[in-house]
């Protein structure tokens, strides 16, 4: 069996026709005909949840099967991890990566691409440190990317938005943009792949992640505005839409939504070309195809734009998952079972014939896909290191706040930055070392950092009746709230979470 894993970054499930007629924040539908057509032939998972957030923590869950956010934040693969690519190639499977996800190639996240037999890296998305000219990018374009009043376009510091203005300077034709390049590379590779007996191809598309920069005809599909109006943002700052650096007017927010939608439709168009190539190469009979995303993106709901800072609402956490498996009797079905991002690790390894290589926290979805069971998990845990810890049983979602004045320990074999991942790692003179992790005998460094608030009070939602999560059921210690809080403790116990997690969450073992 071959496996094609496609991640479409930041893809909100409610933007896909298969999940919802129209997104919750829009009064118009968004065209995703190719993803919807694929969903019709696949198993559509309705209760799939992110785990460790945001981008790179999710990728370590997929690659290594480690639910890392209880122990560390965004960081590199660890020496005790077995990546999907390593396990596959040691099982005689050719491995290939196609991506424009530049985080793989910057500070803070090494170890994710090195095990592939080959990889194609499409340069230039977001802050990828690629082009250094033009020194003075087009000012109108730059003003759509940057709104910080004190911004220095000539800054040589890290994580600079001017980088994108340089990278994308001169983009004209649709084929210059990122999703077309990434999915186009996959089209080409699939033709060549037929020379190999077995393969695993991992496609990691940074689109639809911001900046929401699209060519025509997509850019004008969902707005009457001029998409190149310098006063309209393509790249919102993270935070509240009604205050501070991230503040957006109603007009600006409507435009951001339209360009997010445009990005979704552009990705869908190019995903369709990959599907066409799978048709042309008769690949469906021996290829498992998985389409998913790492997280969603708030577009003004609950007053938040983007992710990371606010509560981890289902718009962010309840991610899309579509799976085609040629031998599964569940094709064309909706799968209601609770599943987690981390489960893709064991699923892919079982499909590739090397299930023993799966990570410590992953559970294969293959019994579900074989129709052997309709149940999978009693709980799915998710969140950001240093912030709230969230749990769902598939029916309710419970978000438990942390004490923001508490400290939290970071565990890693490297002195990774606990925050500021993209910048050079700083020495940790106070770090101690030891065998602190329950899932490996390998000693790691342990050092502490601060916490932050995503929700000040517990939040509880009935996810089936209230997907947008507007009716908070927490606050009166109802039977459901107590049960979900107890379930959170059970999950932490099962994972052998560090003592410090219980302390900062105010929970007893």
């Amino acid at each position: 069996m071959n496996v094609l894993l496609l991640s479409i970054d930041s893809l909100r499930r409610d933007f896909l026709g298969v999940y919802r007629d129209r997104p919750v924040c829009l009064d118009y539908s968004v065209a995703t005909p190719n993803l919807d057509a694929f969903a019709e032939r696949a198993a559509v998972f309705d209760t799939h949840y992110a785990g460790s957030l945001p981008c790179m923590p999710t990728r370590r869950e997929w690659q290594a099967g480690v639910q890392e956010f209880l122990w560390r934040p965004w960081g590199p693969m660890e020496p005790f991890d077995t990546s999907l690519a390593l396990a596959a190639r040691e099982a005689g499977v050719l491995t290939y990566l196609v991506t424009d996800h530049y985080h793989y190639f910057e500070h803070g996240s090494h170890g994710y691409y090195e095990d592939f037999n080959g990889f194609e890296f499409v340069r230039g998305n977001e802050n990828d440190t690629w082009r250094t000219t033009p020194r003075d990018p087009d000012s109108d374009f730059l003003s759509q990317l940057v709104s910080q009043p004190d911004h220095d376009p000539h800054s040589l510091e890290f994580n600079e938005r001017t980088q994108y203005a340089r990278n994308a300077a001169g983009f004209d034709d649709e084929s210059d943009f990122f999703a077309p390049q990434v999915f186009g590379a996959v089209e080409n590779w699939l033709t060549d792949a037929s020379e190999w007996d077995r393969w695993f191809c991992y496609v990691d598309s940074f689109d639809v992640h911001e900046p929401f920069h699209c060519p025509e005809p997509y850019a004008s599909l969902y707005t009457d505005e001029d998409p190149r109006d310098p006063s309209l943002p393509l790249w919102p700052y993270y935070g509240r839409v009604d205050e501070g650096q991230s503040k957006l007017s109603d007009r600006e927010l409507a435009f951001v939504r339209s360009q997010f939608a445009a990005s979704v439709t552009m990705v869908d168009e190019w995903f369709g070309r990959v599907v066409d190539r799978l048709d042309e190469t008769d690949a469906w009979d021996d290829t498992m195809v998985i389409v998913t995303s790492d997280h969603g993106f708030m577009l003004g709901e609950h007053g938040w734009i983007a992710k990371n800072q606010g509560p981890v609402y289902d718009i962010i956490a309840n991610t899309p998952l579509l799976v085609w498996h040629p031998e599964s009797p569940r094709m064309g079905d909706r799968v209601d079972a609770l599943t987690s991002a981390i489960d893709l690790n064991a699923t892919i390894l079982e499909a590739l014939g090397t299930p023993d290589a799966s990570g410590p926290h992953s559970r294969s979805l293959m019994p579900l896909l074989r129709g052997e069971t309709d149940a999978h998990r009693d709980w799915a845990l998710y969140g950001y290191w240093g912030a709230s810890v969230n749990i769902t049983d598939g029916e309710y979602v419970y978000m438990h706040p942390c004490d923001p004045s508490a400290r939290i320990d970071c565990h890693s074999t490297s002195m990774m930055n606990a925050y500021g991942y993209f910048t050079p790692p700083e020495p940790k003179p106070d770090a101690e070392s030891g065998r602190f992790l329950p899932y490996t005998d390998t000693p790691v460094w342990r050092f502490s950092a601060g916490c932050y608030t995503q929700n000040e009070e517990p939040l509880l939602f009935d996810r089936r009746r209230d997907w947008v999560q507007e009716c908070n059921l927490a606050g009166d210690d109802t039977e459901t709230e107590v049960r979900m809080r107890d379930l959170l403790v059970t999950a932490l116990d099962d994972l052998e979470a560090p003592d410090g997690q219980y302390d900062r969450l105010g929970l007893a073992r």
Partner: protein
Amino acid sequence: MPPVVECCVRNLTVSDRQRLDVIDASIRVAPCLEHCGTCRHEPFVLVDGSLHAGDEYEHALTSLGGDIE
């Protein structure tokens, strides 16, 4: 309306967190505010979206009432 003060958890010291706790403002502590160049060298705050670092940082906290002396 009280100002909105945004700061990055990366370089927010325990004592500065205590200072922020007593000022009359909406405090937002974020994991990243995309001022990484400043952030990796020194503390900063955004007051209603404007950057205050270095001497301005101290002045901003003091003027907002964050002097705990």
